């Protein structure tokens, strides 16, 4: 066994230890899980701190000011510094200004974008011909389009909060929530398959990479 193989075995054993430690949570909370949890939380917090310094603080603040002499960047830098005033009992109110700016600008960007992508694009995709003729014969595509339109409208009625769900509105809303649940069921099944494949991946690692049981 050469050095590289030995190193691979050591690292695979460490990885296998953490995989089994996390899996042990399925039995109950235990000491091994706590060790794995503490290490992954600590390492990830440290990793993201370093990542933020190198991907955000340096390229977006330090380098534009120091290298490019673009002093406009001092303004967001100052607003960022105001965030730290929240540790001061007397000047803590200063921290609200950058937060207000951040939320305000974020909402301003998000609202038109949401209306564009989740309203107009969806409306456009729903405006479909329900009467499709091909070679003077009714095409089944028209039936599909009709179903899409009905499902969208009934699902929208379910999310209508100003009217009580009674009578025709109630029946439409009930039909709408059934359609939504059918959609959820399909999505659930699809994702479960993806999660099972993740589990298979970890078991393959344990059985094949770590313990050469399965070749």
């Amino acid at each position: 066994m050469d050095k590289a193989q030995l190193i691979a075995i050591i690292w695979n054993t460490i990885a296998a230890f953490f995989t089994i430690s996390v899996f042990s949570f399925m039995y109950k909370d235990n000491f091994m899980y706590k060790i794995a949890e503490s290490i992954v939380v600590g390492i990830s917090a440290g990793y993201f701190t370093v990542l933020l310094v190198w991907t955000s603080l340096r390229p977006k603040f330090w380098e534009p000011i120091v290298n490019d002499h673009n002093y406009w960047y001092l303004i967001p830098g100052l607003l960022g510094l105001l965030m730290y005033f929240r540790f001061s009992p007397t000047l803590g109110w200063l921290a609200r200004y950058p937060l207000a700016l951040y939320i305000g600008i974020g909402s301003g960007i998000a609202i038109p974008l949401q209306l564009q992508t989740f309203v107009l694009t969806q409306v456009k995709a729903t405006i479909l011909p329900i009467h499709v003729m091909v070679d003077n014969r009714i095409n089944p595509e028209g039936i599909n389009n009709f179903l899409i339109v009905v499902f969208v409208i009934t699902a929208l009625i379910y999310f209508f909060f100003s009217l009580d769900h009674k009578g025709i509105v109630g029946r439409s809303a009930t039909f709408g929530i059934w359609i939504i649940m059918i959609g959820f069921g399909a999505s659930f099944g699809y994702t479960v398959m993806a999660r099972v494949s993740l589990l298979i991946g970890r078991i393959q690692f344990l059985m094949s990479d770590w313990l050469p049981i399965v070749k």
Partner: protein
Amino acid sequence: MSGHSHVRNGLPVILIAGWVCLACAIRAQEPSPGALPPAIQTMIDTTAPIAEPVVLRIAPPALLAAVDAPNDAGKAIDLSWTVSPDDRVDGGVTAYRVYRSKEEGNGFVRIAELAAGTVAYSDRVQQEDSAEEEAPPPDAAAPAVPTADESHPFEIGVPYYYRVAAVDTTGYEAFSATAGPVRSIPQWYHSGKTPVLVLVLVFFVLVVVLIQMAKIRGADMYIRPIAGISEIDNAIGRATEMGRPILYVMGLGAPEEIATIASYTILARVARKTAEYRTNLLVPCNEPIVMTIAQETVKNAYMEAGHPDLYSDNMVFFVTSMQFAYVAAVNGLMLRERTATNCYFGKFYAESLLLSEAGNIAGSIQVAGTDEVAQLPFFVTTCDYTLIGEELYAASAYLGRDPLLLGALKAQDYIKAIVMLVIFLGVILISFGNEIILNLVTVNL
């Protein structure tokens, strides 16, 4: 005599030779049938390949038009032309070459070579990152193979002249007329996004009007009961009876995301209740700024409830930004603190099932709400109550009965009614071949 006869005999030969020389000299001054006119030759960059002797004549492209690209940051000029009459299967055109100059008569440099059949080209600022490219060329379907000359980059605001040449197999270039000058100008308004502007304005007006109405009518404005919302209060009461803490998870969304903003409002309501009932509240955060805003929200709620002394910064704490490390920590917290009620409101991704399944195993009452459609099935299957999509936004209005929130919720209902009407009319019209509604809602990016 003999000398004279020699002269007499040689004169015709001299005359013929002189005529031939004169004809050759005159011919040398004239352009050859295949050569370009001198005026055009001066417009062509000397670095461009020199045309080979002409074998086949082709006609140039016509109707060259150059216009500033609309709805952009002044980074492009759009060219269009009609193809050469010789641009056909059995014709002689093999490509089109686009030339650009800052002067009308000369200094033209080749900026692109395009496949035969191409009728448009967009001369634009070269993108450093192709992913940041704003829009495709006007005729994206055309077999365009731009070979822009990087030594002559496009400059914003500079007036340019353009010519397009049809090229044949020998390299002969038949030039179109010059188009220009055209200057690229950044636009303040993106006319393709007018439907978005109209919708935002309609929504804005509706929100303002309905907020005023809500202020006048107060809590009389009707909102239908939503099962999951009323259960939040019951769940808080249950935690108080059991003497165990309440866990409030805000998801992994950014602070400015709408689901996260809705979550702040619900958190304020939950925090007011926990302050009134003196129940312990735990809010582990995945994002530092979300944590800061959540701390302010909870602090305000405790002050409004008249119990600022019960508030502690340790209630709202940062765990880590890494998704699954965050899940590991929160799952451990659920089991060790034995939380009686778990609330999940905000933006959730793959961690939704991992969190809610752990809470389900721990026997906690769970109420969730998210607008992330892919995660809703997991909350529906593992939680006691789930707020689906917009119910999350409605929750804050329903709980608070605040005129601001009530008015906004009513405005959303009106927008939904308008959307349903537009869909209905659009479907009817398009079924009869009329696309007027479809065009009205189309956003041209």
